[in-house]
């Protein structure tokens, strides 16, 4: 092993090293947490689909998700689904999006009309009951807290007052919350007869959901069928498509800040040593060797900054999980690796300018003062 000049140069001036690594860490933290928060928010968008237990979902022909759509199909078709080979159980819901109004407060909610005690209802209650009587509603506890609503208070949907009989938790997303009413209330208030919005299908053990889906598609061509995963993916896709541009801009800003922090770091570190690089050139070191030193300095700074940023974002994630915040940060290995790769790329690019400077250094200048 030879002398690790890059490492020595960095550790010679600890304060500068700490400041520059801190700057890089902050920039990466910015990108990583924005990325994680957006990914987390999008992940949460499909919470209703994720938490409701079923294998397949049947919807109006062509409808792929919940958000910003309506789905209605003939209830007779549900019986046809029940008779398909491999189907164990089918439950239905009615669904629409409406405003939840209490006084001057309005918030958008998925309104789910569900059959009492069956699939499609609340999966996690905070307070109250999930056994609704006519005219009763279940809303999310965070919406209730925001609007200062208690059990027994009234909220308006479909232009009618409902009495709050229960609170759920974990049912608020960046786009809306979820509110539950009785299936028959939904039917009556909307003037519906013999239609359903979605049918959730459980398959018998030993039957693959895909095979059952194939049979439903073949026999009942008036509806669409998807697996749970396809349904959740298309639900998230609607929102991620909407936020894709914003995300790109945020990532670009983070990238540029990171680039500036790293570029400045590598540049000043090289500039401070320009005379020494000249001396090394004079005594016979090659450009390639000097480039390696500069590059190693950039790589060490970037890696240290990235490692710190990752640690911080994990702490942030844990902290948010402990608090009752609704923000979810999702950082998978793929985003770790992607951002680490981008950071290294920034590091390499940031080394380019100092490397040109070294290339231009005239070794004969060592004799000039």
């Amino acid at each position, binding site marked *: 092993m030879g002398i690790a*000049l890059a490492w*020595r140069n960095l550790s010679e001036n600890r304060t500068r090293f700490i400041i520059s690594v801190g700057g890089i860490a902050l920039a990466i933290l910015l990108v990583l947490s924005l990325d994680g928060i957006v990914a987390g928010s999008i992940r949460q968008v499909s919470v209703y689909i994720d938490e409701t237990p079923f294998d397949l979902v049947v919807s109006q022909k062509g409808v792929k998700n919940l958000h910003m759509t309506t789905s209605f199909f003939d209830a007779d078709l549900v019986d046809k689904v029940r008779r398909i080979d491999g189907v164990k159980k089918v439950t239905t819901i009615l669904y629409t999006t409406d405003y939840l109004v209490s006084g001057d407060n309005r918030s958008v909610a998925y309104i789910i009309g569900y059959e009492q005690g069956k699939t499609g209802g609340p999966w996690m209650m905070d307070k109250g009951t999930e056994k609704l009587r006519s005219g009763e509603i279940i809303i999310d506890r965070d919406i209730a807290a925001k609007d200062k609503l208690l059990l027994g208070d009234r909220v308006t949907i479909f232009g009618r007052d409902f009495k709050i009989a229960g609170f759920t938790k974990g049912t608020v997303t960046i786009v809306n919350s979820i509110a539950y009413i009785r299936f028959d209330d939904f039917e009556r208030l909307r003037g519906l007869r013999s239609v359903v919005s979605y049918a959730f299908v459980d398959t018998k053990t030993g039957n693959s959901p895909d095979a059952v889906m194939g049979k439903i598609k073949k026999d009942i061509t008036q509806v669409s069928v998807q697996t749970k995963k396809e349904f959740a993916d298309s639900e998230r896709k609607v929102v991620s498509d909407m936020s894709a541009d914003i995300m790109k801009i945020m990532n670009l800003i983070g990238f540029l800040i990171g680039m500036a922090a790293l570029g400045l770091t590598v540049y000043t570190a090289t500039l401070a040593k320009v005379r020494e690089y000249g001396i090394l050139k004079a005594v016979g070191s090659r450009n390639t060797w000097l480039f390696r030193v500069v590059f190693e300095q950039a790589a060490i700074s970037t890696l240290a900054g990235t490692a710190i940023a990752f640690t911080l974002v994990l702490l942030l994630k844990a902290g948010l999980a402990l608090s009752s915040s609704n923000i979810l940060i999702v950082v998978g290995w793929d985003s770790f690796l992607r951002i680490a790769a981008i950071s290294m790329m920034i590091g390499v690019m940031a080394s380019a300018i100092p490397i040109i400077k070294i290339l231009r250094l005239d070794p004969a200048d*060592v004799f000039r003062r």
Partner: protein
Amino acid sequence: MNMNEKVIDARGLVKTFGEDATAVPALRGVDFSVSRGEVVLIMGPSGSGKTTLLSVIGALLKPTSGTVTLGVTELTALSERDLPDIRLAHLGFIFQDFNLLSALTARENVELVLNLAGVKGEEGRRKASELLKDLGLGHRLDFRPDKLSGGEKQRVAIARALANEPEVLLCDEPTANLDSKIGHDIVRRLREIAKDKGKSVVIVSHDTRIKEHADRILWLEDGKFSEMSAMVTDPVCGMSIEKDKAAATLVDSGKTLYFCSKGCAKEYQGKL
């Protein structure tokens, strides 16, 4: 050891900086050679081309014309790509302001150039330590330059210059930043190295006190060597001038005095 063997032989060196109207002729046809084990001192006024000459012999600067031969290799015929290796293996440089790397210890400064030449690990460490011990720095191996005195720094620089066993040491004003006692010690060590190890040492300096350590003294003026013997000192202003270019001469108590200008001569006469 053949002491007459020419290690460096430079012929007809011309170096002009810039072009046309702004052209500065720094060397105007210099022949120069140095033998094995020889200590050559190059003196001359500021701007006379001393550093330029050293850079050209040191393969740091291409001459406008002329040739430099190191041993049997004609350096001026080599491409830019080959020069770093030549400098690394065959030439040692010593500078006025030491030019050590501030992040590295004394030993590491020496070890690094050994690393560059492929001597790595334990062997590089051992060799660096030995060189420094030979120069009386055994107790300073792990000190960084900012903790060393000027004389110690220059000795580290000498160890670094010697690391890859070059044939030639090129020193530009090696004593200018040292007090005279330490400066003497440095030049004495350089002479010792020349004699014991058969290195050729070329020293550029304004420092007349180191004349005694040189085997040969050359006077560079206006980009050309002039005969040392023909050089005289103006007794008034102390400037070195060529005998035949003196602006005035006077004879005082049987001795001929040479002056750079009529003014100096008048001043001298006034004191008489």
